[in-house]
């Protein structure tokens, strides 16, 4: 059986987080009543004209600078001509020959510390289409043009990915980057961040690319992985059965977990691109680029390096903590309260907190425990108010909304027992109750020590300071042995 190699390139559409549309002064807010945010320009009324939003250009340059790309000094808007009800003018204003962002690249980290550079062919600006609603009327399709004219940055990668997993890592990295840059809210449910995947297969060692299919309509990373894997299987099956892969657009159906051919978009793609005569070349100077570069926030890669070098975090911890802007913000807010506890904080965020978030299926910014709350909890561990074990109990209570770490410790009487006298009396009691085990220890059976610690902790309801218990217990038991 032949061994196959998968080749994947992604086209990511990121909606730019502007207040107004790319070519009009209508609002881009999501979820308003149909067609109430579509002005004459968005509706493609006769005689009206597009005027470019400055912020859109700034945002595109931010992205370009962040991926080390060439910024085109005079990029050009072109018309992509086709008819569809959600495309009011009969053409989409996009960029074709001269996109604003030229070739760039992005490093991704794969398992076991392997990293890879993914080429980014280009990123161009364009306007989003409206929405066709097929289930609104029995015989008709309804068209809502509120989304028409929302600015998009289309980020086109090279076919550099070799598995669905790699594609997901890359997509997540772009997703994090656009949010770090503050140019896209990254909301995949609302369609602010959408992926199309170009997938083909070829025999290992073959240089020529196989025929590709473009999969559209992928609105989560999970579906991205599943859609690509389904498509890989489908293509391999086709070829192994002696058929051919057809170059076409396929739609991913998450309910059926399959891709299927999109008949309606299949016909001759003669888009008749030409420069839009209503818009002029967009001039970007070196000064513009330098000004924007200077204004960029710390990017994930820089942050990751800083976490490793300055905070002494592991590569893994640094990678995960910077993988989303929200996680990094959470971490850094917590760190601000406890500047010398980076490792502890990382452990808590990546351990207890992330498990709880996963279980509740919510994002870190929705966490019921705030960075201040978490730092309060960690502080109580480091000042020996509570043990690590008790801390987990406190965390659980905080998650349930029972209050702050301090108030929970207080209310539940979880404060660690550090009073030597109190611990000694506990120890004396346990020694007195277990003469057999005392004899065993004294006969040299060190293992019994654990039994005593367990008993003492049980008696103290876990509140006795384990270090002190160990030390005092040993002293007392050894005293008898002499």
């Amino acid at each position, binding site marked *: 059986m032949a061994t196959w190699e998968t080749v994947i390139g992604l086209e990511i559409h990121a909606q730019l987080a*502007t*207040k*107004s549309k790319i070519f*009009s*002064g*209508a*609002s881009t807010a999501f979820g308003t*009543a*149909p*067609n*109430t*945010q*579509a*002005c*004459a320009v968005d*509706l493609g*009324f006769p005689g009206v004209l597009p*005027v*470019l*939003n*400055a*912020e*859109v*250009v700034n945002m595109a340059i931010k992205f370009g600078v962040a991926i080390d790309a060439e910024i085109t000094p*005079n990029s*050009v808007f072109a018309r992509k001509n086709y*008819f569809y*009800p959600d495309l009011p003018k009969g053409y989409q204003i996009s960029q074709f020959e001269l996109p604003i962002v030229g070739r760039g690249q992005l490093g991704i980290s794969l398992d076991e510390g392997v990293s890879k550079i993914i080429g980014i062919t280009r990123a161009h600006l364009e306007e989003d289409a409206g929405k*066709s*609603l*097929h289930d*609104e*009327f029995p*015989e*008709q*399709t*309804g*068209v*809502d*043009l509120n989304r028409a004219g929302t600015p998009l940055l289309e980020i086109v990668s090279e076919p550099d990915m070799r598995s669905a997993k790699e594609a997901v890592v890359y997509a997540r990295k772009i997703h994090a980057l656009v949010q770090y840059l503050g140019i896209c809210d990254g909301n995949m449910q609302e369609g602010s961040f959408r992926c199309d995947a170009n997938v083909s297969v070829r025999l290992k060692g073959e240089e020529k690319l196989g025929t590709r299919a473009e999969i559209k309509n992928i609105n989560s990373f999970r579906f991205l992985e599943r859609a690509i894997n389904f498509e890989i299987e489908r293509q391999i099956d086709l070829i192994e059965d002696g058929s051919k892969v057809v170059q076409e657009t396929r*739609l991913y159906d998450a309910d059926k977990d399959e891709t299927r051919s*999109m*008949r*309606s978009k299949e016909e*001759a793609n*003669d888009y*008749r691109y030409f*420069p839009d*005569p209503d*818009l*002029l*070349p*967009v*001039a970007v100077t070196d000064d513009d680029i330098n000004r924007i570069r200077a204004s960029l926030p710390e990017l994930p890669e820089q942050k990751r390096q800083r976490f490793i070098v300055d905070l002494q975090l592991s590569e893994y911890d640094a990678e995960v903590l910077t993988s989303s802007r929200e996680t990094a913000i959470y971490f850094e807010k917590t760190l601000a309260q406890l500047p010398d506890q980076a490792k502890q904080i990382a452990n808590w965020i990546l351990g207890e907190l992330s498990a709880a978030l996963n279980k509740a299926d919510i994002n870190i910014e929705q966490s019921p425990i705030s960075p201040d709350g978490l730092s309060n909890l960690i502080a109580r561990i480091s000042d020996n108010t509570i043990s690590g074990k008790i801390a987990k109990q406190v965390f659980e209570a905080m998650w349930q909304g029972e209050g702050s770490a301090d108030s929970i410790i207080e209310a539940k009487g979880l404060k660690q027992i550090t009073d030597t006298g109190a611990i000694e009396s506990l120890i004396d009691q346990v020694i007195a109750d277990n003469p057999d085990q005392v004899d065993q220890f004294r006969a040299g059976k060190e293992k019994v020590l654990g039994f005593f610690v367990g008993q003492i902790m049980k008696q103290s309801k876990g509140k006795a300071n384990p270090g002190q218990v160990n030390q005092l217990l040993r002293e007392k038991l050894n005293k008898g042995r002499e």
Partner: protein
Amino acid sequence: MTLKTEDVRNIAHLARLQVDDESIERYATDLSNVLVLVEQLNQLDTSGITPMAHPLDATQRLRDDAVNETDLRDKFQNIAPDVKNGLYRVPKVIE
């Protein structure tokens, strides 16, 4: 360059224009005549000349990112051929 009726049919489809069979011949002739005129352009060597998309060598002016449009849906939809519940309606599209 002579256009055949089949070419005209293809272009008409791209342009979403219904053209009946009797006019299609006439369009083919008319368009071919214009193309003869257009082919005069080939007399000229234009290698190395930058195409000119705009009469003036200006660059795009940018607009501040501000919302300054209000909801005029009723006014706009008043002149629409078919609207319901605020949506424009077209025959069902099958995807």
